[in-house]
């Protein structure tokens, strides 16, 4: 079961190049955006140039940290949004495309079980894509810190203090990795649902994936005048257990930043124990297990070739 996973996951990366092309494209776009911003800023007065990333004379250390952390969190957010779309489209395509082009007959002529194959796709969606996204986030941060450092140095600023000394890079990077991997695990019931639809739908898996929940939600509202079903699905999306103690609004309030260095740590706002002990974590894994088993069953028993 485990021995074949590296080869099976490598196959997924060969087939779905968007898994690494998308983060690379975002990295390039973000970097070009930062370069454009720096060039635009160069058109203003020197004070403004340096103030953008916080010169000691113009802006305080707290504001500088806020700007840089905001940049880190903002770029990570762009990657997270892309991760969401990437995961949905990958999961819906992964078991559908092989039936559409009939290559399933070739894959099944190899000594790899249906369970191994479906699990490799689940692992790709829930773990591999998030990890590649994290690498994309790290690379983007690193490249942009270097670019900004060069710009600040060219303007006569001390990049070592103004840029590298103003943000906890390791803290941000570990936080980014935890957030993307935790989001993959937290969203695994949805991923497993998409995989199930991917192996079950005869056509238009995207429609088959989203129509049933919408119809169920509407039926619940028509019959009971309640919205528990759609609310439950919607609430699943906010990763609450990982950030139990964190309010996004308060996080960026100026007072928070003035309290001291500790408050800037994203890691400190995370509650990993709360995340893995949350009933939602385990119920999610249970639903993921049930739907993955259903996907394996359908791939094994389905015969439309």
């Amino acid at each position, binding site marked *: 079961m485990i021995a*074949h996973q*590296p*080869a*099976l996951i*490598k*196959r997924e990366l*060969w*087939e779905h190049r968007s898994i690494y092309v998308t983060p690379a494209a975002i990295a390039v776009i973000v970097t070009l955006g930062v370069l454009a911003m720096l060039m635009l800023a160069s058109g203003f007065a020197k004070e403004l140039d340096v103030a953008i990333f916080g010169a000691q004379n113009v802006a305080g250390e707290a504001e500088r940290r806020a700007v840089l952390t905001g940049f880190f969190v903002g770029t990570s957010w762009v990657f997270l949004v892309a991760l969401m779309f990437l995961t949905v489209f990958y999961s819906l395509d992964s078991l559908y495309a*092989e039936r559409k*082009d*009939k*290559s*399933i*007959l*070739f*894959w*099944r*002529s*190899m*000594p*790899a*079980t249906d369970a191994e194959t479906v699990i490799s796709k689940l692992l790709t969606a829930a773990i591999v894509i998030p990890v590649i996204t994290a690498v994309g986030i790290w690379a983007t941060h690193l490249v942009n810190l270097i670019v900004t450092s060069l710009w600040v140095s060219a303007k006569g600023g001390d990049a070592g203090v103004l840029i590298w000394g103003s943000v906890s890079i390791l803290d941000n990077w570990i936080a980014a990795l935890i957030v993307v991997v935790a989001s993959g695990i937290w969203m695994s019931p949805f991923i497993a649902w998409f995989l199930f639809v991917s192996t079950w739908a005869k056509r238009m898996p995207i429609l088959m994936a989203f129509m049933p929940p919408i119809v169920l939600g509407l039926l619940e509202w028509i019959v009971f005048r309640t919205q528990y079903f759609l609310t439950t699905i919607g609430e699943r999306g906010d990763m609450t257990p990982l950030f139990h103690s964190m309010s996004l609004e308060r996080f960026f309030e100026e007072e928070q930043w003035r309290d001291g260095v500790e408050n800037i740590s994203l890691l400190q706002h995370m509650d990993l124990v709360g995340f893995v002990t949350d009933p939602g974590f385990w119920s999610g894994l249970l639903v993921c297990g049930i739907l993955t088993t259903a996907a394996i069953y359908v791939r094994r*028993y389905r*015969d439309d*070739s």
Partner: protein
Amino acid sequence: MTSLVKARSVSKNFGAVRAVDNVSFEIEKGKILGLIGPNGAGKTTLLKAVLGLTDCEGDLSVLGLDPFKQRKKLMQNICFIADVAVLPRWIKVSQLLDYVEAIHPNFSRSRAEELLLQTSVRSGAKVKELSKGMVTQLHLSIIMAIDAKLLVLDEPTLGLDILFRKEFYANLLNDYFDEERTILITTHQVEEIENLLTDIMFINDGRILLDSSMDALSDTYVEVLASGEGAQKARGLGPIAESEMFGKSIMLFEGVSREHLDGLGELRIPSVADLFVAKIKEARR
């Protein structure tokens, strides 16, 4: 002789349709068996049951394994080409070799590369860039580099031109087949493979109409080309099929000795295609 495949009362239903109907047969080691039948006869369903790709009723054992329950183990010793079009179009040849090497314990990459060198398929090419004939060469090179006991071919040369078809079977016989290996093949182009078959099985409406070795076939079936009084006498012996050509009657006999037919006309061994048509017509009467 060792039987690699043993089927006893095997059936498969798709809803109300009985695709395979209570068939029993054995395939022995070192044989090349042709499974012949019209469209919708149940050939592919039967092959899928043998390959463990679909479940079925009855007792089916392949290499001593239950094919559906032990498919992974079975696939280590079975290869199959379902159709030339099934290789994923997005994959590169080198990636395909990497994948099979990682997954299949009996695959020899060096052997596959050696075989590919004899073709115009290059390792950097994607499958979608190859012609249908080249895809077949690639698939066959991979299959021939796997040390398998049973090779199953389902319409392997469909859509290929005559040159590729001839080359495909020549490679199979010269570079792959030996007494340790067994091949099960279905095709509509029966006349192209009848000379390489050791055994033959006809299937129609899910039932086996004929299961015989090619040697026994020539003993059991005789074709008589006769006219006039000879044709009259021959007709009296109960041919299973009769047709007319150039004013002569061609009659096919089953289980009638050549001694009885001698002197009635020209005696011939019927072609597999003629025998197949006769058996199908007989079954539909």
